[in-house]
């Protein structure tokens, strides 16, 4: 006899918490491997988790209605023989994950020896779900498995908003990603950050326990899912990090001379250019020089995770709220490629048709608030990242150059950083380097 502990596995699509709906077996029951054990509702779907082992259930943890997190022990078994390694969400059975469509394949190998067969059709097909053709197509576009959603519309109809909510569940909090272990641990840690079991009814963490009184006519508008996720992420960041903001000023007169020329050269070739990619390139050069700014912190192990990849999140302002698509491996892309990617991602962010994968995996975030206005700001860090860069308005300002007052293109740069791991002097050095690079294209371009 051996003991086996079942930890709540990652139920797919990077979800790290769910609500216990019901137990499908009781303590004392003898259960077979793959027999249904528990139903869990996530913000995407209700999933049935099968028992990972055959054996006798000694204890079940959690009541229906409770929120449980990925990695929480939820069931204890007595099993025959030696104990297998306890389940862990990295390799746990994927809860009835819908089979992914095979990717298009250019060519098959030479004459096959046997007859190929099709995978069995899943029990529930997209057309069995209550949703219009438009909504079904939207789900495909956004990489959401519509058969796993529960609709909020009349008679359970799935709406466009349901699809967008399912897709944007990950906007604020990046989720575990199989291919990037470092990143994954960090995200796990994000999930651990609120280990206390909170009852579901308690709305966003931001909600204070204060009654809201009204003294005149009001219109009540329910909070959108995206807004709730943004709120959760902001509170989490504020709870976990000690925010300090440092401001620097940069002279970008020379950079813009170069930019204007490049823009003209590219326009002749029908290629559009914006200044943002230059800032991304300069930032990456600085991140390489000051790696702590591209790091995260694993509180459980007490280790700092220096990320060796440069996936730059770009904060995009959309009518529904802030969305942060990510430019993957921006260090390996040229200015034109980055410009094109930003244009495409921002457009789709506003249309809310980004795929989940396009919004996660960031290592550092830039918010380009300048074009909207203001002098400078104190941005909130996209946790579990440790710092964020704000780009502010670029305008002609008087400056002293070689003892003369003249008109220069200048801008403020802000960085919020986590003072637990980064000191003010580090931030000052980081920002000074960045300002120098932006001021001297001849220096900057040597670091591309």
């Amino acid at each position: 006899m051996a003991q086996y502990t079942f930890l709540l596995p990652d139920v797919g699509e990077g979800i790290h918490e769910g609500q216990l709906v019901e137990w499908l077996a009781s303590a004392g029951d003898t259960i077979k491997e793959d027999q249904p054990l528990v139903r869990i509702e996530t913000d995407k779907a209700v999933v049935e988790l099968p028992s990972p082992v055959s054996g006798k259930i000694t204890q079940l943890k959690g009541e229906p209605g409770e929120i449980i997190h990925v990695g929480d022990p939820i069931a204890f078994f007595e099993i025959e023989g030696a104990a297998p390694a306890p389940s862990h969400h990295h390799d746990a059975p994927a809860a009835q994950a819908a089979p992914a469509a095979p990717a298009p394949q250019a060519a098959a190998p030479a004459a096959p020896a046997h007859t190929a067969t099709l995978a069995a059709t899943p029990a529930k097909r997209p057309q069995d779900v209550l949703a219009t053709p438009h909504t079904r197509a939207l789900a495909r576009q956004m990489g959401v498995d519509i058969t796993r959603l529960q609709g909020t519309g009349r008679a359970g109809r799935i709406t466009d908003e349901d699809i967008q909510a399912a897709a944007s569940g990950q906007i604020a909090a990046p989720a575990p990603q199989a291919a990037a272990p470092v990143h994954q641990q960090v995200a796990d840690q994000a999930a651990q950050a609120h280990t206390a079991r909170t009852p579901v009814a308690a709305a966003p963490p931001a909600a204070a326990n204060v009654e809201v009184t009204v003294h005149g006519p009001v219109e009540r508008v329910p909070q959108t899912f995206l807004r709730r996720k943004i709120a959760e992420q902001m509170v989490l960041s504020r709870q976990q990090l000690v925010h300090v903001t440092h401001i620097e000023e940069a002279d970008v007169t020379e950079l813009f001379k170069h930019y204007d020329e490049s823009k003209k050269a590219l326009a002749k070739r029908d290629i559009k250019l914006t200044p943002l990619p230059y800032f991304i390139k300069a930032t990456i050069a600085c991140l390489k020089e000051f790696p702590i700014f591209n790091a995260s912190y694993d509180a459980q192990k007490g280790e700092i995770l220096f990320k060796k990849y440069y996936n730059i999140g770009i904060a995009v302002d959309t009518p529904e709220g802030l969305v942060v698509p990510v430019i993957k491996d921006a260090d390996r892309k040229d200015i034109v490629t980055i410009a094109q990617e930003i244009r495409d991602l921002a457009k789709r962010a506003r249309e809310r048709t980004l795929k989940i994968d396009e919004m996660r995996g960031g290592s550092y975030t830039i918010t380009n608030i300048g074009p909207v206005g203001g002098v400078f700001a104190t941005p909130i860090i996209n946790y579990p990242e440790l710092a964020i860069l704000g780009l502010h308005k670029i305008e002609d300002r008087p400056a002293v150059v070689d003892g003369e007052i003249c008109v220069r293109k200048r801008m403020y740069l802000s960085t919020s950083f986590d003072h637990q791991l980064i000191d003010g002097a580090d931030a000052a050095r980081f920002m000074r380097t960045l300002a120098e690079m932006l001021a001297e294209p001849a220096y900057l371009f040597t670091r591309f």
Partner: protein
Amino acid sequence: MVVGNLNASEGCDALVIGAGPGGYVCAIRLAQLGKDVILVDARASLGGVCLNEGCIPSKALIHAAETFEHLQHADSMGIVLEGTARIDMPKLKSWKDSVVKRLTGGVATMEKMNGVRVMQGTARFLGPNQVELMQDGRPIMIDFEQAVIATGTTAIELPFMPFDGEFVIGSREALDLEEVPEKLVVIGGGYIGLELGTAYKKLGADVTVVEMMDQLLGGSLEPEINSLLNKRCKQLGIQVLLQHKAISAKPGKLGEVVVEDKDGKQKTLPANKVLVAVGRRPNTSKLDLATVGLQADAQGFIQVDIERRTAVPHIFAIGDITEQPMLAHKAYREAKVAAEVIAGHPAAYDVRVVPAVMFTDPEIASAGMTEAQAREAGYNVQIGVFPLKASGRAMTLGAPEGLTKVVVDMDSQRLLGVHIAGPQAGELIGEGTLALELDAFIDDIGHTIHAHPTLSEAVLEAAEIALGTCAHFASPKR
């Protein structure tokens, strides 16, 4: 190009085999999506069965027959014909042919405009990325990265009375007759047999329809519509022999067909022509599918997934060869899906309803579940049936026979099915199809204004009957 290969050879990104509604649309869409496409078909004119020997020519013939019939009954509206109306079959045929030619020519133009290379010949697979196209006994090799099989179907032959093109004919020959046969026996009471049988009856033939089952049209009809159809067949003078099967034929200028009822009692039917319309079989046996690792099922269908991808990932199949129903508009949708998937876009054949229209008399159309299917599926079913007798528009058309029926889930109020019999049923089903695909509730239809006086009001009325708010017809209390 393979050096040293004596055969001519071609290459493309995507090869489409068969230029019917599935293939010709798929080729155009693939080209629109930037693929280099070759479209091949054994016949010289594009459009497959649908344009050349199916939907289009049959509907031309049916329309002509209907017009002829209307003329004969126009006197009640005060239209007096001096002398008698007469059918000139060769002229009718050349009008029908001109319609077909216009449409097939149009398809050829569209392919050309989109840069699709069209080649005539019969294709078979030589390997996973190559087919051989036989052109007048001369092979051409075509290499492809991805292929779409859209080879359609052929009429099934009865072994004991094979097609001879003269006495025993299929639907293709039935659309090309030089004269109206005096006596026509139709074997098979499916939609193809019944549509053509009705048309020839209206053109003046003596028509007998022989059907093995105990109902016409495969027993798929709503009972209300089935009885309307039977009544109308009787009225037109079409003899319907249910639960009878053909057992032999004796060809001749005036030949005969022997049929047998379920008790084995035989009957001899004199006939100038026998139209055998007992179903269609997928054209998959001559493709050498085994060389790519594919196998058709026992009936010849190729299994596909929701993206219309076969078990071999770079080969797709669409149209009549994938699954029932064998209808052109299903092929159109599958064509778009396959093309988009091949071009790397997310797409799926995830339609909920495929409408079906039978150009019989009355015209019959349906979308979604029948009442019986809905009950079977466990829904708490509510129906609304509106007879065209109560439709002002139907009366002004002189066509008060028909009905509209909606099937509704009482618990959720969702629309589950729409069934229509009567003039323009095929046009009217569009509303039902859209409503079903958009997941409409019955009040979505009931609260939508339908223009007056039109037949489309009959769909509204049926919805209102289901809702209990109809003002134009006193339905039996529910």
